[in-house]
């Protein structure tokens, strides 16, 4: 099966896609976009979070064919270019506060925080926790992550 979608602003095509595989697999293994991470494949950890038609979703739970004709933005698509100064404010805030340990949860968190701040420019701490309830950090660096969100909101 062929899947065509717009990923990070570019039309991309994947061939020989097995209908039961996930959008996450297509992104990582077929389109060379390893930003979204595969940790649980069951929607529990949020490390595969990407935008699908503007809404953050778990890419591991979207069937490849469901993404056909849709628009996807991954963590790679949030920065307009390469180099630290080009990073999105959420990415810069994670760096500045040291909210990254092993980094496995980071791409999913960045997308989830990006979405939160787009909807709510000044979230309270409970709002932040609620918005990030679907993202697990195995290294448990939650305090730094909270700091990063507060910093991103004010930058």
């Amino acid at each position, binding site marked *: *099966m062929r899947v065509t979608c717009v990923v990070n602003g570019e039309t991309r095509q994947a061939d020989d896609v*097995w*209908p*039961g595989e*996930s959008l996450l697999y297509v992104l990582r293994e077929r389109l060379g976009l390893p930003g979204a991470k595969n940790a649980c*494949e*069951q*929607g*529990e950890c*949020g490390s595969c*979070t990407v935008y699908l038609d503007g*809404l*953050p*979703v*778990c890419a*591991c*739970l*979207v*069937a490849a*064919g*469901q993404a*056909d004709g849709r628009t996807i933005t991954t963590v790679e698509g949030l920065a307009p270019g390469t180099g630290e100064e080009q990073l999105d404010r959420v990415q810069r805030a994670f760096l500045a506060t040291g909210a990254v340990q092993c980094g496995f949860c980071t791409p999913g968190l960045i997308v*989830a925080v990006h*979405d939160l701040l787009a909807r709510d420019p000044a979230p309270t701490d409970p709002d932040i926790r*609620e*918005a990030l*309830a*679907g*993202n697990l950090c195995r290294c448990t660096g939650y305090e730094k992550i909270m700091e990063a969100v507060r910093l991103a909101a004010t930058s």
Partner: protein
Amino acid sequence: MEFLRPSDWDEALAAKAAHPDAMPIAGGTDVMVDLNFDRSRPTALLDLTRVTALTDWGTDGDLLRVGAGVTYRRLIDELAGRVPGLALASRTVGSPQIRNRATVGGNLGSASPAGDAHPALLAAGALVELASTRGTRRVPVTEFFVGPKRSVKTPDELIAAFLVPARPGVEQFAKVGTRNAMVIAVCSFALALDPQTRAVGTGIGSAGPTPLRATEAAEFLAAELPWETRGAVPAAVRARFGELVGAAARPIDDVRGSADYRRHALAVLARRTLAWAWTDLGGAA
């Protein structure tokens, strides 16, 4: 495996009739977990996300009809005033990412006894609209579930929508779990009070082979509530209501909790949701 992608409702029904083994997929939050873990290998996936008829909602006489493909996110954003109990239940489902994709139709399709939409639909007296190329039927949700993960839906049918009264009474929902997000209910309870008809609706989740109603508890409460005066609900009435809800459950011991705990917790949830709902109705605390 085939991937069927009907572009409208008639095509979807025709595809299901031609491929009764095909697995419908909406939000994919149940289907994809099973595929990723090799727990199921359907011959075909039938993608419903392009069928816009499934994502509509609107009134149908004195009923509100909500398409099976409406996500929890949209229920919360667009329908909280119209399906208050279901919206409360929706807020407890999974995480923001899950609520952005997962649908009530998928919850009904999976028919898990722990599905969070089910107690709220039971309490509200919902109907489930099933359709096939043979026609359309509306089944009371009380008759929809026939066993763990089993419903009256036939292999050629799809779930089109659910329907609830367009003017809801007061509704509440509460769920017990180990954290605030991402939990399968240990048990859950939904309550609906209709001051117009003086009727009480109930729904019990995750404490029986199917979602259940607490019929005796509901009848007892409907007869005992001070509907006229809106005075305080006597402590003995609250306690008896809780007991009857606990007694209506048919729980088992499992990894999430013991049967005894579930009965106890349901009695507590019943009393709590009653207190909230009575306050919502302007009743005395």
